[in-house]
């Protein structure tokens, strides 16, 4: 579980790491701790998965990846563990989840988000997924977003 210092660390780094030569020491100074403790806590939070990764978080849209396709697949339940792992491992898949079906309107149980510069590029990538998945998928579709109705960042209280 996270303690009060972890929560402060979250609040202090939500906007990013300080752009100075010794960023962990700068965080330590701000929180009244020493650098070694900051480094050890960040390492542990990475290990437990509370931090997914540390590094550059690209803005897809600003980098020209304006087409966003949610590819959805009806995969046999017994094959989804293996297929999901292989689809998630593709470089261009940014999220990959198993979710419940809602038949008959929604037969799909595997979701893989694909970003591209154009819709055609996204469709070509989805075609690559289709080859990889093969006959394990009974059907698939790509849902493009046609409008962003709301977008707010992750907010975590300190």
């Amino acid at each position, binding site marked *: 579980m996270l303690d009060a210092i972890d929560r402060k660390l979250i609040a202090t780094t939500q*906007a990013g790491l300080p752009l100075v030569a010794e*960023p962990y020491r700068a965080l330590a100074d701000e929180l009244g701790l020493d650098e070694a403790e900051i480094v050890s806590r960040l390492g542990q939070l990475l290990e437990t998965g509370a931090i997914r990764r540390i590094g550059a978080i690209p*803005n897809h849209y600003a980098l020209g990846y304006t087409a966003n396709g949610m590819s959805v697949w009806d995969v046999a339940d017994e094959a989804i563990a293996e297929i*999901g792992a292989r689809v998630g491992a593709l470089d261009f898949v940014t999220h990959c989840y198993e979710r419940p079906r809602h038949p008959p309107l929604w037969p799909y149980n595997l979701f893989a988000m694909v970003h591209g510069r154009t819709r055609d590029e996204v469709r070509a990538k989805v075609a690559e997924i289709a080859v990889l998945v093969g006959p394990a998928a009974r059907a698939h*579709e790509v849902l493009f977003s046609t409008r962003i109705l709301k977008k707010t960042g992750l907010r975590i209280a300190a």
Partner: protein
Amino acid sequence: MRALDPTEKAIINGLQGGFPLTHRPYRDAGAQLGLSEGEMIEEIGNLLARGQLSRFGPLWNAEALGGAVCLAAMAVPPDRFDEVAELVNAHPEIAHNYQRDHELNMWFVVSTDAPARIDQVIAEIERETGLGVRAMPKTREFFVGFRVEV
């Protein structure tokens, strides 16, 4: 949009994870990319200033921090679309909402501090709109590299 130069590409492609937990991490990460510590700090600052990076630092996992997240979808009659979008978006727990080209045409993410709140928010939206909400919580997450190649 100005094209990215090779240094910017190297930073974006090379640093989407694994930033070192060392005393001088910009120096150590730069050594892998053939850049000095000063160049790294300056280039990352420029990418942030131009909005090409949203952030540089830890990517926190909301669920591991005790929160809950659930994707949900609705089939909204086209003539009610804007009205329903307004009702849905009025909930502060709605983090993202996208229109998509399908009979299920409204897709949003409910994000709450406490897992029990997810079902309450969905029930409120159903009552306010008179429309069914299909909850699509993830039942399994597959590891992704989370990388964009530029």
